[in-house]
């Protein structure tokens, strides 16, 4: 007797758990030929708000984790992805119809991207911060801190590498995020959520919603407890209205100038977009006790 396949139910990823949409709604994910692939959760506004609450809760743990620890966790994600490499290749081939060779290269690049960012966590302060030689008796330094909760519209057309390329820089800096997955590739996004769930990422640090971008994104952009937006996956029509909504709470907004090439080595723009520079002043007294400098 042949084995009857047990197919996976794709749900949302909120606060480290995999709930169905509270609305009970689903939509059909189609493969590259247009055939039924799976039912995906069709997230509602309420799911989005729950995800923001989870991201805010997760922020406490993730932003306070040491940079070394954050690096290890992101590296762990790379490990998890590596060991499920062939499964992702298969899933993406079904979803996009790309060749196995092209898809393998994409999955490998996604693994390497995580390794790249794993090594960034404990370098950010050295690269982006400074000891400030102020002209008064103070020790003054500037160092980057996470912006907070970041709303991400994942790019279309690059279901895994694109997703990893936008999520990794955000969490590398200590932010947490609510990701609206590419509408046509919900299965890959939720499979990636399983990587997140098994990599010691604190609950809520990464939340992934599947559904209609046009339905969810306006609420994400207008949410008062979201500090920043990455609009990489926003269509040109949607982008302007989302930026307008973001202005109401002075959110930081990252919009790539043109379509990013995720296969290329990333720069630092995505890291810097979601970091705040904090300057701290501490008195040293009028006289230097050692005769040395306090910068």
């Amino acid at each position: 007797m042949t084995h009857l396949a047990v197919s996976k139910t794709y749900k949302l990823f909120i606060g480290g758990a995999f709930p169905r949409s509270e609305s009970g709604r689903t939509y059909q994910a189609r493969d590259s030929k247009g055939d039924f692939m799976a039912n995906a959760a069709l997230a509602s506004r309420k799911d989005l708000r729950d995800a923001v609450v989870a991201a805010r809760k997760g922020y406490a743990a993730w932003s306070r984790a040491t940079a070394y620890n954050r690096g290890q966790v992101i590296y762990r994600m790379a490990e998890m992805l590596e060991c499920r490499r062939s499964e992702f290749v298969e899933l993406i081939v079904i979803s996009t119809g790309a060749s196995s060779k092209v898809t393998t290269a994409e999955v490998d690049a996604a693994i390497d991207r995580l390794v790249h960012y794993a090594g960034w966590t404990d370098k950010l302060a050295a690269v982006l911060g400074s000891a400030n030689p102020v002209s008064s008796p103070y020790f003054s330094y500037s160092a980057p801190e996470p912006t907070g909760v970041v709303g991400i519209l994942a790019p279309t057309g690059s279901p895994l590498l694109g997703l990893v390329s936008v999520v990794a820089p955000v969490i590398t800096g200590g932010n947490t995020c609510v990701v609206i997955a590419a509408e046509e590739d919900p299965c890959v996004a939720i499979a990636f959520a399983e990587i997140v769930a098994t990599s010691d990422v604190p609950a809520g640090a990464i939340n992934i919603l599947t559904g209609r971008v046009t339905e969810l994104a306006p609420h994400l952009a207008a949410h008062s407890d979201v500090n920043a937006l990455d609009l990489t996956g926003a269509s040109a029509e949607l982008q302007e209205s989302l930026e307008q909504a973001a202005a109401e709470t002075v959110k930081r907004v990252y919009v790539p100038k043109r379509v990013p090439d995720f296969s290329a080595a990333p720069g630092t723009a995505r890291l810097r977009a979601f970091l705040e520079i904090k300057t701290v002043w501490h008195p040293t007294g009028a006289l230097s006790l050692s005769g040395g400098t306090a910068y």
Partner: protein
Amino acid sequence: MKWEYSPAPESRAIADIKDRYMPFIDGTFKEGSGEDRDTINPGTGERLSTISTVNAENIDRAVKAARRAYQNVWSTMPGAERGKYLFRIARAIAERSRELAVVETLDNGKPIKETRDFDVPAAAQHFFYHAGWADKLHHLGLGPAPQPLGVAGQVIPWNFPLLMAAWKIAPALAVGNTVVIKPAETTPLSILVLAEIIADADLPPGVVNIITGAGDVGSTLVNHPGIDKVAFTGSTAVGRRIQRELAGTGRKITLELGGKGANIIFEDAAQDQAVEGIINGIFFNQGQVCCAGSRLLIQESIADEFVERLKQRVETLRVGDPMDKNTDVGAINSEAQLSRITALMDAGIAEGAELWSSSCPLPKNGFYLSPSIFTSATPSMRIAREEIFGPVLATMTFRTPDEAVTKANNSPYGLSAGVWTEKGSRAMGMAAALRAGVIWDNTFNRFDPAASFGGYKESGFGREGGPSGLAAYLDTDDEAVAP
């Protein structure tokens, strides 16, 4: 024993205020086509001078001049040469510092000791600091040859007119941009003296254009299609509007907006130093400072004693003629600002906070307000949430460090915070926990061009000063694009 001070007025003649000032466009001072505006001396309430303002056509001419200067001269000039122009400006500000201080005090109303000892020297220092960066941009960590953005449209407030001009112009020019800048309508004079300095420095025409007028001029400027970068310092309401209007344009924005800074006093603080720091935090520049320490959080165990000490010290502040060298607290910048402050104070009284004001006598003419402290404020009151932008402190208490952090961070703003404690680990721990762009441990209101400044949350984004302040004027998008 009662000590009396004799008046020690600075000479008004040093300012040599002209009867009329004109915008500075494409290297020349020329009549604008907008309606004339008078600028008032807030210290006396009298007219100081008349300003010719610009219309849309003049703005367009300024933007085009800036574009030409950008393309033909400034962006192609070696960084070292750009730097030398900025060094020249820094030196000339220092040379004309006494004049600039008097002009600023007459036009703004802030005490002469502040313009003389802070605003003007800090402005010169800003040019000097940024001048040195002009030929070192490849050391910023932003790639081998970071590129300028083009023409910057800049709008600055009235609270530090000359210094804000320096904060905006110096970094923009250092990295190779040209600028069109609009000062606040109540304080246009010092930047127009700076324009003379810029002209005397032989800066190529069009590199710096100064346009005069009210909010509509600023709005036209930031929305002008010929602008590549917008930098705004002012209220969160206007900043939000600018961000909304520029949605979808891809224009790089820096917003330096409002604040409601928490100044946190622990029971082990050196109390006399803390008192001085709080006074500096809220009464410096009559409290008209975006990063003012306008919320005082005192640990409950010392609250009563501390507030008494604070009142005693505030009682000794000399409020009055900004031109008097002994004046501690000068005039509020305008009648409109004075009424905004008093309206919020009325709201505080109506909501049940107790108001205490210094008994110092106030001059009859001009716009003055006694330094004031609301005791027993609660976090939900408007005086504890909204930016007052005046010499008014809202006082609350806390019991534990965690509660202090929660209360301090409970604000849509996040520009500044102060921590007063003799325990170093607590100071550093608090500095890490507070969600604000600038943290002062056992001090307040310290600024330096080498130390970046800017807000978290709704206090804005982008930085001014330090390496990150330069990044705000460079094309820093290094993401590879699809072929």
